[in-house]
């Protein structure tokens, strides 16, 4: 294993006899209960080995590294790639080029981050900082970015509706204030 299991509080290594116990055992350093699960991948060299050099003529080589032996075929483009090029996440091997392309295109399986426009709208509408002004702006922002929040996990639509409702409330207050000011101005005339 490249990294030994450690206690997450004091950093002391957890000895092998304490692995895979059904119940947590006290850490020998800080006495905090620690539970460690070590899996077969921790004992084998699944994908972390260096790329094998070409053993003989006629063997498939990596598309991007001609000196390396091919380990797998990319599940997206079909090219043979070595272990340096393969991104191991998911069932299929994906070469680094396809991975970068997929990330740029925003494919869900490659997505690394997602801006939450609905949460931004809600914060803009609800955080008490000049909300009479930012509230209505938040409403416009929420409407413009209505379908732009694309997370790979389910996200409740109530967030944007709440932002819109609070924004509408602030808009009503703003309109009321303006009407009061105009009324007072008329009376003064």
């Amino acid at each position: 294993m490249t990294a030994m299991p450690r206690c997450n509080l004091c950093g002391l290594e957890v000895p092998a006899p304490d692995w895979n116990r059904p119940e947590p055992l006290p850490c020998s350093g800080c006495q905090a209960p620690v539970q460690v699960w070590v899996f077969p991948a921790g004992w084998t060299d699944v994908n972390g080995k260096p790329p094998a050099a070409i053993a003989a003529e006629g063997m498939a080589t990596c598309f991007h590294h001609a000196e390396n032996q091919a380990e797998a075929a990319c599940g997206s483009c079909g090219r043979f790639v070595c272990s340096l090029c393969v991104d191991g996440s998911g069932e299929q091997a994906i070469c680094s080029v396809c991975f970068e392309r997929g990330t740029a295109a925003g494919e869900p399986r490659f997505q690394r981050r997602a801006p939450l426009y609905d949460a931004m709208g809600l914060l803009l509408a609800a955080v008490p900082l000049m909300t009479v002004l930012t509230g209505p702006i938040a409403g416009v922002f929420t409407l413009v970015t209505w379908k732009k929040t694309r997370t790979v996990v389910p996200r409740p639509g109530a967030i944007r509706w709440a932002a819109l409702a609070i924004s509408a409330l602030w808009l009503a207050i703003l309109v009321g204030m303006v009407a009061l000011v105009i009324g007072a101005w008329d009376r003064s005339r």
Partner: protein
Amino acid sequence: MSEYRMLTGWSPGWVRSAALYDGGDHLLQVNSLRVQHEYQRFPYAEIRAITVTEAPLWTTGRVVRLLVFTLLVVLAMLPAKPGVRVALAFLPATLLLLQAWSLLQGRRCVARVISLSGDWPLRGLGTMQAVAEAMPLILERVQAAQAGLPRQAMMPVIEAGKSEAAYRHPRELGWVLAGTLLLSALLIVLYSARPETRQEIWNIAIFVGPGALTVAIAWWRMLRRHQTVAAALVATIVVDLLLFLFYLLLEWRRPTFSLTLAELTLMALGWQKVALAAAIGWRVVAAALAGWVAQQRDEAKA
């Protein structure tokens, strides 16, 4: 339709929180920065180890915060005018409630995952409750994904089912405790609706109004998992006793001491117990009915 299934609730945190999702062949950790999600994927076939260390519940910082906020609430109750009391106590009481809510989240833990890509924090497993909920499925998935890999003889068999019992901590407990606190506060507010305090009653009612809803949700959740009702009941009684002592102390401070408030509190507590007992009873009856119906159906098929 998302391909991900949530394994844990969101870990506690005001600025940053995280949750774990099962993606079939990989574990997805969603780190939420409130206005942005960041995704980390850990293929089950590549997970080498997972470590979970239980953190102490009562840290020095937490105790100090609780003491300071409690002291501020007590100090805010000293002025004679009720309106002033409410205005002064609002902020420290809110902070105190948030601290209490944080405590009700249960025992915390620090978890890490060692995979082929490195050693990463598993922030989604922030509480022991989350560990109890998520680990059985994670273990199952990892075992299935790594079934073809050789296992050394010295390595004990991973027992997925036993970890849950070691970590059982009912989340419903938190709901019931919070609901009890808020509902009791609401009842006290209603009681305080006397002519001299009637002006401020609506302000307070808005603050504690969601209490009834919280209690309803707590009971609904308990109906779904009756095994935690007993623990919730015990916890509720303890909280009720503490509340009763607190109310008694408040009433004692008034110029005209009377037990009316305490009596009303007792009535409210009694009503809550009746409702909890009804919830348990309904669950038992429903389970018995379901069993009887299933038995009848099997007999009809036979």
